[in-house]
């Protein structure tokens, strides 16, 4: 049977979830902001280092405006990984990050959860990392969907992790 894993993109609206989704799946980027309503789902087949093929089913969900609890529960069913995306230029997109992570951990403890700070092209990486550390904001990766910085590597690493 084909290896298939469900990955859900979560986070505030306008943080670049759809841009990351499009960058990873189709290697495309648009400056134009288009709101996502509900969920868009696409599949990408990834060649794993051990030769297996993974069918990554990515759910690009509608951004919430407050906490991740606002996301429809049914979208999260059967997930193998959550990618919580925040915008490095908007503090309000990560002010609830720690409580959101607690919520995910308490309700979906078997699901791998990763945190991405996106829009790296708009900030100085060192300053941004330092600021996040000072504010005790955990993150796994800083990306730019616009420049494709760290995007492919992030998803590849995630694919390996969820198929271990």
């Amino acid at each position: 049977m084909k290896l298939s894993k469900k990955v859900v993109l979560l986070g505030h609206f306008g943080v670049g979830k759809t841009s990351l989704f499009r960058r990873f799946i189709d290697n495309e980027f648009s400056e134009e902001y288009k709101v996502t309503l509900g969920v868009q789902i696409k599949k990408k087949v990834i060649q794993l280092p051990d030769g297996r093929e993974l069918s990554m089913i990515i759910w690009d969900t509608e951004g919430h405006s407050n906490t991740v609890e606002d996301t429809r529960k049914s979208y999260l069913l059967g997930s193998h990984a959550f990618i919580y995306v925040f915008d490095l230029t908007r503090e309000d997109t990560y002010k609830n990050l720690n409580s959101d992570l607690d919520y995910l951990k308490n309700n979906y403890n078997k699901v791998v959860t990763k945190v991405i700070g996106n829009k790296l092209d708009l900030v100085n990486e060192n300053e941004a990392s330092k600021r996040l550390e000072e504010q005790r904001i955990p993150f796994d990766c800083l990306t730019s969907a616009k420049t494709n910085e760290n995007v492919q590597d992030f998803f590849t690493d995630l694919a390996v992790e969820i198929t271990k």
Partner: protein
Amino acid sequence: MEDPKDKLQFNPQIQVTKVSYQGIIEETDTTLFKWSKGMLIYDTHPFFEVLRTLEDSHFIDKKELNFPCIHLEEGKLERICDLTIKPNGQQITIFLYDYTDKYKEVNQIAQQKNESILLAKELELRNKYLLEKEEFKNSFIANINHEIRTPLTSILGFVQVLEKTPLTFEQEELARIIKRESRHLNSLIDDMIDIAKIESGTLKIVQERFAFRDLIAGFDETYSKAAKEKEISFETYVESNIQEYLIGDRTRVYQILNNILNNAFKFTEEGRIKFTISKNYQRTNKLSLTFKIEDTGMGILEENIPYLFERFTRFDHDKQISGTGLGLAIVKNLVDLLNGEIKVISEPDKGTTFCVKLPFKFEITKTTIGRKKKKYTLPPNKKKFRILLVEDEEITQYLIMKILISQGTYFVDIAINGEQAINYIEKRQYDLILMDLTVSKIDGYKASQMIRNNYGDKFISEIPIIGFSGKTDHNARDKCIRSGMDDFIAKPFEQEELLYKIIKQIAKKAAD
């Protein structure tokens, strides 16, 4: 999000599909999508991969699962559907409700709402960025100012030292050029700092009593000499009913008039420059003056006049004349800050007239006694005076040493930081301390406070202290005085000014 009642009004089209637990379509209609019996549901859209992951536990509380607002594509066709998945014996029944039109409507509203929030955030961010940039620029200018003024002090100072040595005529001329250009560079730095201060709103206007007629006499003296050199005529007329002393910002009034006069001289090669000061009105203790500066210079094209006061404006014919294009921008900003008005009339090849109206105040009760710069002499009881120079830059140390030692009346000790200065004054008696404000370990302000407060011995606690620095923000002098210093001198300083201040402080101390 959408109100379910609203959604009902849409009467969605529905497709019902039955699949086996292996995902094979066993029964379907084609109302929305062209699926057929025997197809694998997983091949129709990645959404249905969810069926592989669903477990019985997901259905424990409910008999069905609902997935609202799912974007389903088939080729180029996209429908936004609500899906209901219902286990039914050996089959799973999937109900697809097409709400595309309704969701597209909701989408527009959400788009507008989110866009306006994002735009507000973007503006906030841009504003923050501009403020940070402005802050960086101001601090950069303040720092670069200090860095430039220090070597400039050395250049100006050493040229003055050099001028006092035997020089050939040619060397004398070269020294004169270096001095002139250094002063010009210094005034350019002043312009840059003023523009930065004006833009950041930190330029403070002061109201002080000053000798107005002396100020005008100073212009007359300086520019009469310049006119003589250029072989043009310069005339100054001051209405006799204008007070000797006025209240206003002397420095800024000087800057405005000096800039305009300087410009008039730059652009006038023949003819005359006329400087007229007249009174517009006087009420109680307020008066308004008009300063008119007329020249017979090259003039300005009418279409260029509106751009005259913009920063870095230099017209084609200006290019051969030195300048930054900041002078008139500063003038306009200063006139505005002083609540004045400025007008220009000009005709190419005939000349230009600048009219500046400025408000002032004057004291009604006080008599207007002239305040001439008082002369001081060193006390005759000592032949030599010991000065402690607190300075960490070698070049400035050398310059001040040269200036003081050439007078033949001073011994100079050098401390390279505040801590060393404190050690020195405890061991030796000094007549004066020249204190750089930014020395290391203990800075000039702190060291002065310690000298004033920590010693019972008057020979230490009352040593005259003159602070000096290249950082010439408006409160440097006030800060020096508050720290217990007696005076302040800004870099780059003229040799005469430094010596005057030293003699003044030593003489004052001796008179106490």
